[in-house]
């Protein structure tokens, strides 16, 4: 019988050959300063379908990107928020729009895991063309700063083991989501169980930790920055191989003996396959160049997106998506979610 521990090992093995490269150095801007509009394209504002609500991480990153894009090109972009079904509804709607380059899509790593699990039929690496990936971030586990039952990762694990599965952690959990798989691999390694409690909206999720309804929280640092700055929450584990400078005090995976490749959250911008070549080239230039605009860089910094290299051009994005897909595939197979 395959145990949970084996799954962890298997998953680690599956990614061993295709290690997700996370260079510490930031990408350089090698793009030309300007580019002619091909045949007058675009002659009117673009539409951007954002398959999440305006307040969440995707809504925010799309507005920051739109601002930088418009500063750069003078072309407006109308955001069109279509939340629902973990991003699948907006994606389906996007696929119905004509492939003329006037409609672009924002999406996150969920598009990849949904494709692998079969809940979406769109492969973001081949049915879509990634224009740019502009945010790549890691997860952490947080506790309250004034917590007195445990104070760091080691004491948390010891305490959680003693609770016999009754310790609780808040996260967003769809079956097979990035959050759940990362956490599962951590728990398997240490041989303890946490009761995961799913909160689909950020506010209640953070409120649950702050108000003492749950014992810990699984989240990305950019999303809880306010609580970190106020000193309400503190991270006790960073799901990265090595400690990033901003969290030098917090143990990373290498420090606690975790060897699997962590699944990352990434957000980027896409168009449909089939957009005329010259338009595509212009859009690629504009979105990648916008990433390097000072306004966008400043935004990324506030979200801790400068700690690891957040930039991928089209080829880099395809590679990232394919690697991520392989990782999910291996775990899903073992969990029996796919055949």
């Amino acid at each position: 019988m395959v145990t949970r521990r084996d799954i962890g090992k298997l998953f680690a093995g599956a990614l061993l050959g295709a290690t997700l490269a996370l260079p510490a150095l930031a990408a350089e801007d090698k793009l030309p300063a300007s580019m002619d509009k091909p045949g007058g394209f675009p002659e009117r504002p673009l539409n951007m379908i954002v398959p999440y609500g305006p307040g969440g991480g995707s809504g925010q990153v799309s507005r920051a990107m739109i601002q930088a894009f418009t500063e750069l090109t003078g072309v407006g972009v109308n955001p069109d928020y279509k939340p629902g079904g973990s991003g699948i509804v907006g994606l389906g709607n996007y696929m119905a729009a004509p492939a003329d380059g006037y409609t672009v899509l924002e999406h996150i790593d969920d598009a990849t895991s949904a494709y692998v699990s079969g809940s979406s039929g769109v492969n973001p690496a081949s049915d879509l063309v990634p224009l740019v990936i502009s945010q790549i971030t890691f997860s952490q586990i947080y506790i309250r700063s004034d917590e007195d039952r445990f104070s760091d990762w080691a004491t948390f694990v010891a305490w959680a083991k003693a609770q016999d599965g009754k310790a609780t952690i808040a996260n967003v959990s769809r079956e097979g989501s990035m959050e759940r798989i990362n956490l599962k691999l951590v728990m398997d390694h240490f041989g303890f169980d946490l009761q995961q409690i799913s909160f689909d909206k950020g506010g209640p999720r953070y409120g649950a930790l702050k108000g003492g309804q749950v014992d810990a929280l699984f989240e990305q640092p950019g999303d809880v920055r306010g609580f970190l700055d106020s000193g309400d929450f503190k991270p006790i584990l960073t799901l990265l191989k090595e400690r990033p400078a901003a969290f030098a005090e917090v143990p990373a995976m290498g420090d606690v003996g975790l060897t699997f490749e962590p699944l990352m959250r990434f957000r980027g911008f896409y168009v449909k396959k089939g957009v005329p070549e010259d338009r595509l080239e212009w859009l690629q230039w504009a979105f990648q160049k916008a990433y390097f605009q000072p306004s966008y860089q400043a935004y990324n910094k506030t979200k801790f997106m400068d700690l690891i290299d957040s930039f991928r051009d089209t080829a880099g994005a395809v590679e990232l998506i394919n690697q991520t897909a392989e990782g999910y595939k291996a775990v899903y197979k073992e969990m029996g979610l796919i055949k």
Partner: protein
Amino acid sequence: MARLSRSQILEAAFWIGFAALAYVFSYNFDREIEIYRFGASGWPRVVILLIALAAVCQILQSLRESRRNARRAVVQITETVPERKLEDSLRITAVLGLPVLYAALLDISGFYFTTPIFIAAYLWLNGERRLPWLIGVPVFIYAVLLTVFTKLLYIGLPTGYVRPFYDFSNWLLVLIK
């Protein structure tokens, strides 16, 4: 004698049937979730059972009432239904159906093309036969909608995904803005 009216029987049948169907379809997602014992089907099934229960109680209460009425030998006061003409019923069906058709067309022929036609058709359906009004009211409503939502608030309404409607919408949008 206790009797239920036809509409009461129909209603009860509707609810029981609805509950039964919903229960059958709940098998599609009847599986435990690793972090939650009651799974995805626990909550809906409780709701379904309560629907069935409430429907049964509704029948029981109607039965009791009609029995009480029968015992008192009160003549059942049937509402004097006004004579319903077939033509009227057809028109009401159209009044209900036309907006559905309009909504279904939004993704195909777009808001901008379909809306004025819909307004005129709806007015005609509701008995407006004076030509100036049939033209004037749609123009007025359409102008207000475009001014408020497109010109002032830049809201992106459906352009329709089918040519030439898609091109017409974009042409109009460029024209207005």
